[in-house]
């Protein structure tokens, strides 16, 4: 436990030095294909270390330093202190005002110590997954040698929930982080009856899109007190791939076409109901399916925790 806190502290100090030396994390440098390469290396590293160091369970004295370190990293002794640091840093994030282009703790997502602690946490999760994978395969093999078939309830009660929780989190967090620089979020201002294919991204750069949108009608309904009840746009979409669609985009009801999700974003607030234009947000997230895979696994893991409660080792 003590060692875990020391290692975590070392990682934070290393992060601070990096921050001083090179400035904040530049996430835009992680755009495709850099992110897939980095993620591939990370997963290969975990798999390699796991396969090399973890099977030698038992002879503690004969183990090399690397083996010992890897086994330690895959343990609760490493996990708990790292999580405590993650809670601490995230709490600092929650207590300070976060601004884009801020420095240090005011832009936590680009603050090296924060990023490194989360990477360390994912490394630990990855190694724990490897440890369990090896354990499961050994146990299954042993079971077959013993009697051909065996009681598998441990698999259902312990190992599958473990995998859903840990692998799900690993996939969701790693793919969410790695894929973030690839996300395109653009605003398109559509005037009634005018075809539009240009949109501005978060850095106010204009982009041409492979879809053309025409606003047929802007819809706004109000409650008696004048607050908005419904905001929507009737639009026509023509894509480069040859599709032609008439649809309505509501708040909470985006429309997806060719990998783009189209959202109702805004309107001329001064004109309200009589707005001459509608602002649509157009989002492309090529990594979404991977993140959702992780989320679905985590949901299943959570359900299994609710149903099973705490299962103690037999």
């Amino acid at each position, binding site marked *: *436990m003590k060692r875990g806190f020391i290692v975590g502290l070392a990682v934070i100090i290393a992060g601070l030095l990096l921050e001083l030396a090179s400035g904040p994390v530049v996430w835009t440098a992680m755009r495709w294909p850099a992110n897939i390469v980095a993620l591939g290396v990370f997963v290969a590293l975990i798999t390699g270390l796991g396969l090399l160091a973890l099977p030698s369970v038992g002879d503690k004295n004969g183990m090399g330093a690397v083996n010992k370190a890897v086994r330690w990293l895959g*343990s*609760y*002794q490493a*996990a*708990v202190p790292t*999580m*405590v640091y*993650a*809670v601490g840093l*995230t*709490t600092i*994030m*929650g*207590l*300070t*005002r*976060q601004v884009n282009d801020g420095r240090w703790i005011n832009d*936590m*997502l680009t603050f090296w110590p924060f990023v490194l602690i989360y990477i360390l946490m994912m490394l630990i999760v990855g190694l724990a997954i490897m440890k369990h994978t090896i354990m499961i395969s050994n146990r299954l093999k042993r079971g077959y040698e013993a009697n051909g078939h065996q009681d598998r309830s441990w698999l259902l009660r312990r190992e599958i929930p473990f995998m859903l929780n840990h692998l799900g989190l690993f996939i969701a967090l790693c793919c*969410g982080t790695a894929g973030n620089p690839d*996300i395109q*979020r653009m605003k398109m201002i559509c005037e009634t009856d005018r075809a539009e294919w240009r949109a501005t991204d978060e850095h106010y750069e204009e982009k041409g899109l492979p879809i053309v949108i025409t606003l047929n009608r802007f819809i706004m309904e109000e*409650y008696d*007190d004048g*607050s*908005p*009840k*419904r*905001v929507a746009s009737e639009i026509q979409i023509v894509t480069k791939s040859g599709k032609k669609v008439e649809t309505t985009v*509501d*708040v*909470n*009801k*985006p429309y997806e076409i060719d990998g783009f*999700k189209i*959202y109702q974003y805004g309107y001329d607030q001064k004109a309200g109901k009589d707005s001459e234009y509608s602002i649509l*947000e157009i*989002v492309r*997230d090529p990594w*979404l399916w991977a*993140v959702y895979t992780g*989320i679905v696994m*985590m*949901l299943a*893991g*959570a*359900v299994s*925790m*609710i149903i*099973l*409660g*705490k299962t103690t080792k037999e």
Partner: protein
Amino acid sequence: MWEYFIYFAVASVLLWTGGAIEAWRCKRIFAMWMTTAGLMVFFGFILGLWITMEHPPLRTMGETRLWYSFFLPVAGMIVYSRWHYKWIFSFSTLLALVFICINVFKPEIHSKTLMPALQSPWFAPHVIVYMFAYAMLGAATIMAIVLLVQQHKLYRKRIADDGQQSLVKAVEVTDNLVYVGWGFLTIGMLFGALWAKEVWGHYWSWDPKETWAAITWLAYLVYVHYRIAWSKQVKTAMVILLISFCMLQICWWGINYLPSAKDSSVHTYSSK
């Protein structure tokens, strides 16, 4: 509809109190039935509110307190049916009463028209699941306090085995409450993420409410892992649980008062 709240509330609390008394007298079936009856009356009010407002009552702090008061006895019933704690209904009734009183005496709440961003099928499950998680984790917190006090007494009096044994069982209950509560916390958070993608275009934006949800989620995760690896260190574990519950409170309502979150969170509950 709110003007009728007091009648429903009094009826429910009376029934729940009856359930609590029956539980002390070890009349298990009566205790369960009376609590159920109280829940039905209380849910009758929620349903009435739902129908008259034409949307689920989940928007304001007052409305979420309503659900919290509802789920506390539900959580109590689950615990009671599994472990038969005599005191659990007294606790759930008392806590539900506190939230009811806040709604009666400080109703900075009431009908608020639902803005388009909240008109989603994700809305109800997201908030209801979270409220249930809060109720379970609230119950775990009370267990933690009871355990810390009990352990202190045991230590002073040096009571032997049977005291120890009940302690072990109580810790087991606490663990299970946390597992179930954390499970619901996870589902609530992930439902929120899926909803956020549909309404704001991204599943996680590190909005202050989201940041605090992550903190809370991770803090309880510390407890879960700590309990597995250091199962003998009950005291430290319970302290972790208390800290986690503080994080949960900040996430739930404390955030409305945090300078870092003011004006920048789309999640802060409206009090109108």
